[in-house]
C-alpha cells in the first residue's frame, strides 16, 4: 500500500507491504537510522518516536497506522547542526549515555514526558521513562539530564 508520513517536517511516501512496521519504514524508507530496533517486543523503548507529538514504540505501530500523520525522530529534534534540543544538550552535559544505543529512544521519551509535564519531580521522571531500558544502567545520569532539561526550559 502507498503510505505517506510527514517525518521531521518532510513528506515521505513509499509503497510498502501492509505488514510494514513504522520503525522499518523510518529506517529503510526514510533512511533515518537513529531510531533503533532493540528488543522488537515493545519492551525496551529504543524505537521510541513521536507520533502526532506523543511518544510511541515504532516497532509496535504499523506504517499504515501512521499514514497521513506526523512523526518526529531524534534526527528531527535539533534546530540545526550546532543547535541541539534542550534534552539533547542535557544528555550531553549530564553524561546521560554510555554506549548510546538506547539514547534516541530515551531522548524522545523524555521529550514527550516534558511536553506533558514541564516540571516533573525525579519520581515522575523515573516513572515517565519506565518504558525505556538502558543496558549500561545509566539511569541516574539520564534522570539527571531530564531534570536539567526541564529546569532549563522552565528558566527560559
Amino acid at each position, binding site marked *: 500500500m502507498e503510505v505517506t508520513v510527514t517525518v521531521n517536517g518532510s513528506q515521505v511516501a513509499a509503497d510498502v507491504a501492509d*505488514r510494514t512496521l513504522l520503525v*522499518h519504514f523510518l529506517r529503510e524508507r526514510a533512511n533515518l537510522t537513529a531510531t533503533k530496533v532493540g528488543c522488537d517486543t515493545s*519492551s525496551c523503548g529504543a524505537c521510541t518516536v513521536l507520533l502526532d507529538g506523543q*511518544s510511541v*514504540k515504532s516497532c*509496535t*505501530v504499523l506504517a499504515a497506522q501512521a499514514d497521513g500523520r506526523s512523526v518526529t525522530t531524534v534526527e528531527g529534534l535539533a534546530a540545526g547542526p550546532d543547535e541541539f534540543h534542550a534534552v539533547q544538550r542535557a544528555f550531553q552535559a549530564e553524561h546521560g549515555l554510555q554506549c548510546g544505543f538506547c539514547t534516541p529512544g530515551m531522548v524522545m521519551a523524555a521529550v514527550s514526558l516534558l511536553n506533558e509535564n514541564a516540571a516533573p519531580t525525579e519520581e515522575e521522571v523515573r516513572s515517565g521513562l519506565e518504558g525505556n531500558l538502558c543496558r549500561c544502567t545509566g539511569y541516574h545520569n539520564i534522570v539527571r539530564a531530564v531534570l536539567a532539561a526541564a529546569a532549563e526550559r522552565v528558566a527560559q
Partner: protein
Amino acid sequence: MIPASFTYKRAQSVDEALDLMAAGGDEAKYLAGGQSLLPLMKLRLAVPETLIDVGRLGGLSYVRDEDGHICVGALTSHHDLATSELLRRDVPLMAHAAGQVGDPQIRHRGTIGGSLAHADPAADLPAVVLALDATMIAQGPAGTREIAARDFFTDFFETALRPGELLTEIRVPKPAQAGWSFQKFTKRAIDWAIVGVAVQGGNVALVNMAQTPVRAGMVEQALSAGADPAAAAAHAAEATNPADDLNATTGYRKHLAEVLVRRAIEEARGRG
C-alpha cells in the same frame, strides 16, 4: 520480527468497519491501538488475514457524563483516560488503573476497548470494569446491544462479543461507595500483573487469578457481613484458578492475592 502477511483495511466509520468485517470473514480482526494485537502477530501467535483498522474513528474517543453514568468511548487511549478530569473526579479507579497500564508509549496508543476485547486475564482494565459493574455497548450487523461486564469475559482471551461485533462504548455507573483501590504486583515496572486487585466500594475484582478476570465473591460476602480487611482478604484465593508459570507458582499467586486484597480494602476504606 514482522507479522505474517495480511491485508490492511482502514474503516472511516463504524458502519464501514462492520461491513469490512462482514466481508473479511473468520480470519479478519479489528485493530485499535494494536498494543496487544501487534506483539502477538509479530510472534505469529495471531495470524489474521485481514486487519480492519478502527483506530481513526475519532468519534469513539471520549469521556462524558450522561444520566448518572460516565460513558467512555471504546477508542479512548489509556493516556486520555488517565488524564481525563471527569474520570479522575467521578471514576478515579479507572483513571488511576489506566495510568498503570504498560508504559507511557503504550498508554498513548493502547485503547480501553482494545484491551477489553482482547481480554487478557493479566490485563488491568478488565478487572476494573468488573469491579465497577460497567456495561459494554457493542454494535454488530444485528444492531446495538448491552453486555454486563460480569457476562463479558467468557474464557481465556474470549469475550461475549459475537462475530462481527465491535465494542463501541463502556458505560460506568457512578460508584455509590467512594472508596477505591488498584493494586498490582509486577517484577519490573512495565510487566503484566503477576496478580492485581481492583476495589470499588464493596466490589473486589482480581487480575490474573483465573482464565478471565474474576470477582472475589467470597471476599465481597465477608465484607458485607462486616469482616475486617484481613479476615475478608483471607477468602481472596477461593474459587480462583491461577496459572503456574515462570513468573510465579499457583501458591505464590494465591498468597499475593490475599496480601493485595487486604491492602486494597484498607486503602479503599481510607478513601471512602
